[in-house]
């Protein structure tokens, strides 16, 4: 009996244990499976720790929806989008999705290019939180970007009905107006928009484009200036900002910093630097970004201090040196810059950024020897660096080494479509080298680029004029009269139509090649420029005579004689010989 009871007892206990184990297993099987890995290689340790903590909290909290949401946010903020989406799936099984969930799900849908899915989620978010403006603006954008222009228009109109003049909605409605060819409506919207929101530089840019297209250059120009200010601020999006609080990716945080900084939203930008620093206290990136920010605001002392801290934390000197030199130069601390660069040059003698930065300092110190040595090293490695070529060209030109300087100048001209100075110097070099044909192209470009009212324009056109004449003479000497006239003399005449020199050169060349009509035309123009110059009439008579117009020739010689000064015996004799009919083959040589 006793044994029997014991046996029964054991059986019952076994059954209870089995039932309990079964219950545990059933419960475990029924528990949602958490997506993703327990840790991710290549991610910061802090992220994996946060992930572990979030997963633990979910498990310990019996898969509470709020804990699951925190886990989903962690995935999403670090662009583990598949894991985030799956986690929201788990959330949806534990509790109804709220406005934030739908908003975040819309962002995930956008990231995978599912615009209709994003719009659907946004509609759900708006239904739950109709007043959340960023969701409404994003819905408008989603509809527009998926080709549902009419629906987008309705959504933006709805935003304006509750938030009149809302800048992003107004701007996009103007865009839609333009797409539909309603220019006047778009212009009215954009003008009203920049009047009420002067910081909407995109609107100013769009309006400038429209006015430019319509030929209203004055208004286009004014709006173009307006649009060149910093980009307009983005509307505040606290829900998305809060998501970024879970971001452990320093690249994504750095991008957000840049985005807000570029828009002038410094108070929104700076926390991202703090976050980067918090995640990786050894990282020099925060100091680099702070230095960059300080320098952009012309706080160069503070910028130098930040860059020095970055260097002390092991930042790559190749990245920092160009920045710190720029700030030190702005502060006129050239000696400090020189000391610093000498130090880094000794450590990294082949680094192009360090060589360039050091050369900049050497040029500023007038240390030509060092600058030349450094620039030669730079250009050997990287022949097409702008500032290196410019500095080297200046040094070589001043040293009289113009052939070597011309190599740098030619590179500068190749690289820089708007560099007038290099083109002018190169033209001067070729002229000095008796290569007028080579001088023409850079000088033509320089003249086209230079403001016609500037003092430099006059000297440029004078050089180009000379180049045309010399090149024309050279072509003429080679017997290529058509090229001499068409490619050079006529261009010189067009460049300076009141200067008689080119007409004279053209006339001489044409006469030498027996192109008497062209020579006569040039000389006739000269008579209008210098109506009291007897030599021109003498030459015109000569040309006309050789062309067979004896009577016209005679009239011109008579005119020459009447203008010739009494004391100019040689000239008067030459004219007299012609008028007396004493003309031989040698007369016109």
């Amino acid at each position, binding site marked *: 009996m006793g044994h029997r009871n014991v046996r029964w007892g054991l059986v019952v206990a076994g059954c209870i244990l089995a039932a309990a184990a079964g219950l545990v297993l059933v419960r475990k099987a029924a528990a949602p499976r958490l997506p993703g890995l327990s840790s991710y290689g290549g991610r910061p340790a802090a992220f994996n720790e946060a992930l572990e903590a979030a997963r633990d909290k979910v498990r310990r909290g019996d898969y509470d929806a709020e804990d699951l949401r925190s886990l989903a946010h962690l995935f999403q903020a670090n*662009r583990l989008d598949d894991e985030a989406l799956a986690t929201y799936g788990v959330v949806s099984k534990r509790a109804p999705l709220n406005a934030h969930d739908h908003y975040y799900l819309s962002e995930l849908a*956008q*990231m*995978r*290019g*599912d*615009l209709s899915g994003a719009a659907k989620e946004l509609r759900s978010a708006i239904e739950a939180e109709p007043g959340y403006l960023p969701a409404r603006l*994003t819905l408008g*954008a*989603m509809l*527009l*970007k*998926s*080709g549902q*222009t009419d629906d987008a228009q309705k959504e933006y109109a709805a935003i304006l009905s509750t938030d009149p003049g809302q800048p992003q909605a107004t701007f996009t409605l103007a*865009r839609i107006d*333009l*797409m539909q060819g309603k220019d006047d409506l778009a212009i009215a919207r954009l003008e009203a928009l920049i009047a009420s929101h002067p910081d909407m*530089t*995109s609107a100013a*840019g*769009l309006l*400038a*484009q*429209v006015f*430019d*297209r319509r030929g209203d250059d004055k208004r286009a120009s004014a709006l*173009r200036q307006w*649009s*060149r200010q910093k*980009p307009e601020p983005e509307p505040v999006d606290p829900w998305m900002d809060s998501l970024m609080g879970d971001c452990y990716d320093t*690249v*994504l945080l*750095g*991008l957000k910093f*840049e*985005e807000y900084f570029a828009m002038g939203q410094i108070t929104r930008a700076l926390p991202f630097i703090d976050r980067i620093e918090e995640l990786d206290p050894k990282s020099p990136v925060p100091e680099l*970004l702070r230095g*960059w920010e300080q320098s952009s605001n012309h706080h160069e002392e503070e910028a130098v201090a930040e860059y020095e801290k970055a260097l002390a934390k092991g930042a790559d000197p*190749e990245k920092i040196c160009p920045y710190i030199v720029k700030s030190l130069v702005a502060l006129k601390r050239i000696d400090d810059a020189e000391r610093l660069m000498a130090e880094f040059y000794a450590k990294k003698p082949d680094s192009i950024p360090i060589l360039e930065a050091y050369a900049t300092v050497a040029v500023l110190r007038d240390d030509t020897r060092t600058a030349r040595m450094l620039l030669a090293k730079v250009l050997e*490695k*990287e*022949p*097409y*660096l702008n500032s290196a070529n410019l500095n080297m060209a200046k040094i070589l030109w001043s040293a009289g080494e113009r052939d070597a300087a011309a190599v740098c100048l030619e590179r500068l001209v*190749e*690289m820089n*479509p*708007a560099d007038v100075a290099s083109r002018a110097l190169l033209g001067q070099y070729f002229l000095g080298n008796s290569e007028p044909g080579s001088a023409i192209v850079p000088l033509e470009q320089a003249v086209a680029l230079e403001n016609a009212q500037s003092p430099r324009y006059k000297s440029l056109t004078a050089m180009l004029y000379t180049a045309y004449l010399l090149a024309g003479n050279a072509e003429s000497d080679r017997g290529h009269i058509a090229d001499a006239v068409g490619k050079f003399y006529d261009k010189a005449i067009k460049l300076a139509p009141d200067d008689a020199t080119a007409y004279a050169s053209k006339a001489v060349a044409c006469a030498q090649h027996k192109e008497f009509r062209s020579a006569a035309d040039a000389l006739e123009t000269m008579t209008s420029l210098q109506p009291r110059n007897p030599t021109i009439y003498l030459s015109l008579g000569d040309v006309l005579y050789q062309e067979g117009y004896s009577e016209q020739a005679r009239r011109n010689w008579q005119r020459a004689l009447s203008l010739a000064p009494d004391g100019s015996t040689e000239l008067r004799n030459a004219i007299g010989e012609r008028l007396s009919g004493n003309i031989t083959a040698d007369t016109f040589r």
Partner: protein
Amino acid sequence: MKRKSVIVGAVALVAVGAWLTYSRTAHKGGPSATAGPAGQVRRVRQTQPLDEDYFRPHPIGRPLEGLPWITDLLICDLDQDGLKDVLVADGRLNKVTWIRQVSPGKFEEQDIGGPIQGPAHLEAADLRGTGHLDVLVASMGIIFPDNDKIGSVVILENDGKNHFTNHVLLDKVARVTYVQAARLTKHSVLPDLVVGQFGYLEGEIRWMENMGNGTYKSHQLLDLPGTIHAPVADMHGDGNMDIVALVSKKVEEVHMFTGDGQGNFRDQVIHGSTNQDYGSSGLTIADVNQDGRPDVIFTNGDGFSYATPGPRPWHGVHWLENMGGGKFTYHKVGDFSGAFSPIAVDLRGSGHMDIVATSCFNDWNDKDAVSLMAFENDGHEHFTPRILARAPTHLVVVKAADMFNDGRIELVTGSFAFYPPYNHVSRVTLWEHNE
């Protein structure tokens, strides 16, 4: 009797199947198809798997001097000698060059035309009805951001003897990044032009109606800056030419301008992103699924104007499937950091369109970073990423063609070395088969 019918049926099925397979391969081979002796299309099916050994890269043209800023390449037989050549837009040296295939596999590079500031895109077309290919160049003026009106459209006019003369068609406009010649209306006799002007704060897309005698009349299509590419195709199958444009900057959108054949175009946005750092980088049109409707493929991978350029997790290659009736379905082809220059090409002669793209803005400090990727099509438009190369780096453009008329596809890439490290930089690279 029954058995015989089955056999006849099976034979017929096999024959029909073979014919269908042949038609599919022969007639839809796109840029990878080659003409055999009798004009018959000939393709060689490759058995080698698509991987890092599939192609053997070697530089062609002039040697590397300094850092290359190649902005575009064009494969065409410019001198029409039966050998394909490569045209190069060099943004640093401000010129267009011609890497001429003087004999099979032998290339020589020469400048063509005069200097062009910031050349960004090349097309070859017989624009003047001379029977010779002229070269159409989109000129930015300056490659780096600038809002001045420094863009232009230049034709390098071919005199038929391989001498090219610059003829400026349009200048003093916002920076031009794209130009294509096409007959955009039913009454067009000579090719019209589509001009995409990235500009900076201002920019636009216009089409220029060819009025004859070298004159053009501009018609505005879009007032926004940021156009990267704007190719032309009949997207609706109605015989009228449409224009599809990738517009980046703030909007990050794909626009389709539907043409009515009379010179009127209706603007519709067919895709886009609200991510301001999306980095749209390139778009082409190709019939990816070979259903007779041209599709759109595009990349996002640009990292040009950042303090910290480099890869972003959202970079990749995308396909907008043309469903007809102006509807498109979006598909992600695959992730690819720093992706640029998508092209559709049947790499292995399988009859299916693969997609190839380059990476210009990857993390080149990472020796595993990929610079050239193929997304292999299994025939059902399921794409599998296949790494083709990790070096040379900074590849901004890829073009594909059967360079040697042997039925196999070669690639040609160009590099834009914008940020360090520069340890594995090339200029123009030909990717030949390793087989």
